[in-house]
């Protein structure tokens, strides 16, 4: 393995001095994670609620004051028509209607039913509104009946399998970054072949095994950098920490990096010029990105697309990282994840080894 270490260092220097490579492998995932984090992080979410008062009584005014005091609601009083129209356009998460004659009915000892309209496709908002409205109405009931408060609710939260959005996308973006790292490995290789650098190296005693080993090790070192960066930012900005076994996590990162490196080598075997290699990386990376459940769970996809996702190696890397890093729900078991990734890796390395041309 003479020349292994110097060649690896030279590769890393070349990588470090190449602004484009640096951007796509290190800066791009970071930008992605910060953007996604800001869009989806559910920390201080509020829900706009339309209040339609058709009773115009003291009781309805009291009820509305009750809603005004709930911090996670942005209550706004509007008429029925406007409320429904704006609900339709998504400005309101829900509409609460206090029917005409409510005060009169209450005075007569009759039950009044309030109408709460929510959108079932906005699951978080529906759940939150139903709970909050329920609580406000209950406290109103107590006040109206003048009964003493005997039971109160002490709110507490508990982490369940139903992980937060941030916890979902941090492992996803790590998986995406590892995928890109491997796939993009094709470009310098093709460029080096095109410029006859590979041929020049072949005229020295440097062995091909040493060359490939150096290339793989260099990519793994960058994978480690990506991991530190992404996990670090996930923890720092969004409080997503690794809850699983660190060794298993590292094992999957290495397995995933190697699998996508093998796919990158296939692109390098196929592409004759740097331009076609660039096109090849796009052809490979975009379907992987959007059909692998890294941005949303596969169960959200149309049914006919789900088998496609089930064939994508990135699906299994993201799934494995989600399970081991943040305790996310399993799409497949860890054993299946490892098996599918391993199979992709071996087959792709064999194909690349068979078809790669050095000159």
């Amino acid at each position, binding site marked *: 393995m*003479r*020349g292994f270490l*110097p*060649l690896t260092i*030279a590769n890393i*220097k*070349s990588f470090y*001095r*190449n602004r484009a490579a640096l951007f796509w492998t290190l800066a791009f995932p970071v930008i992605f994670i910060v953007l996604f984090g800001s869009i989806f992080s559910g920390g201080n979410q509020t829900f706009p609620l339309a209040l339609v008062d058709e009773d115009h009584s003291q009781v309805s005014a009291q009820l509305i004051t009750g809603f005004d005091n709930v911090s996670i609601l942005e209550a706004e009083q509007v008429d029925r028509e406007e409320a429904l129209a704006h609900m339709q356009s998504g400005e309101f998460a829900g509409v609460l209607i206090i029917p005409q004659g409510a005060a009169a009915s209450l005075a007569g000892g009759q039950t009044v039913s309030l109408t709460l309209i929510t959108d079932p496709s906005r699951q978080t908002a529906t759940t939150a509104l139903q709970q909050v409205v329920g609580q406000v109405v209950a406290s109103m009931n107590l006040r109206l009946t003048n009964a003493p408060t005997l039971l109160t609710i002490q709110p507490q939260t508990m982490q369940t399998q139903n992980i937060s959005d941030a916890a979902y996308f941090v492992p996803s973006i790590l998986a995406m970054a590892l995928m890109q790292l491997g796939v993009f490995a094709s470009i310098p290789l093709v460029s080096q072949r095109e*410029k*006859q*650098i590979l*041929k*020049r*190296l*072949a*005229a*020295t*005693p*440097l062995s091909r095994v040493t060359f490939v080993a150096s290339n793989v090790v260099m990519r793994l070192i960058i994978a480690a950098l990506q991991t530190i960066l992404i996990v670090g930012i996930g923890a720092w900005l969004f409080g997503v920490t690794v809850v699983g076994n660190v060794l298993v996590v590292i094992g999957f990162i290495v397995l995933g990096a190697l699998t996508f490196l093998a796919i990158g080598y296939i692109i390098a075997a196929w592409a004759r010029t740097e331009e076609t290699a660039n096109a090849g990386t796009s052809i490979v990376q975009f379907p992987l990105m959007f059909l692998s459940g890294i941005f949303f769970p596969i169960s959200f996809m149309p049914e006919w697309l789900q088998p496609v996702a089930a064939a994508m190696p990135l699906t299994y890397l993201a799934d494995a990282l989600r399970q081991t890093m943040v305790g996310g729900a399993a799409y497949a078991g860890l054993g299946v994840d490892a098996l599918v990734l391993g199979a992709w890796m071996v087959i792709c390395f064999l194909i690349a080894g068979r078809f790669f041309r050095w*000159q």
Partner: protein
Amino acid sequence: MAAQPDVISVTDLRRHYGEVKAVDGVSFEVHKGEVFGLLGPNGAGKTTTIEILEGLNRADSGSISVLGFDPTHQADQLKERIGVQLQAASLYPDLSVTELVELFATFYARRLPSDRLITQLGLDERRGALTKELSGGQRQRLSIALALVNDPELIFLDEPTTGLDPQGRRSLWEHIERLRGEGRTVLLTTHYMEEAEQLCDRVAIIDHGKILEIGAVDELISRHFSERTLRFRSRAEISDSQLAGLRDVSRVNHEDDEVVLHTSNVPRTIAALLELAEAAGAGDLDVVVRRPTLEDVFLELTGRALRD
């Protein structure tokens, strides 16, 4: 020189790509310590030949010995002892001169100090420059430095000066001449006959995958031409048949807009030529006397000019 052992010995080398006979039965020897040139136009089979000798390409048939090794089966041992410069190969664009020379040195068991090499090739001021920032001449010198990192006894240079300006070419020639001074053997390819005349002890003229002639430059020229040439810009007033009738003229050729007269007696032919010009009212002629060049030999052998 004849007593020196052969460093390279090639017999009936053949390499075909489908219907194309890139190398079609080539045989030659390179002696220790000489600069040997493969001279021919682009596509003559020079690069294929040199890459087979370097162990980068394989032969279909023929026997080859380079430093006593068979390049096809003993490439690993051979590569330790040769220096290689490839035609048109670039270098790692994002590494500096020093980094690249030091990197290549680590591939070999035997190494020259990279500092000394960089100084020798006149790259001292560019040590820290990335290779993509170098000029064409600097890049060629760097690639010669890389070919020398293992202190090789045999060096292959494929079109070392292609793409350089005349000044850069001359500077590179000095470096190549120094290699001979250091006792190294050099095999180079070129399509510049001037370069072959300047650098090579012996040349092989190669065309369509076949060697047409081998020998020392002077020997090749005198083998084909015992005469000198007179050259001047052609004039409408003077016809070729008039020129052919001049005293001692054996042949009349045209090269670009120049007339080339071959003569066995320069003073007598010049006198007759000037007389003819005056009689024809062609005015003064600027006549240049030259001995024939390798270019003329190539033209004689192939009927084509060597230049692209």
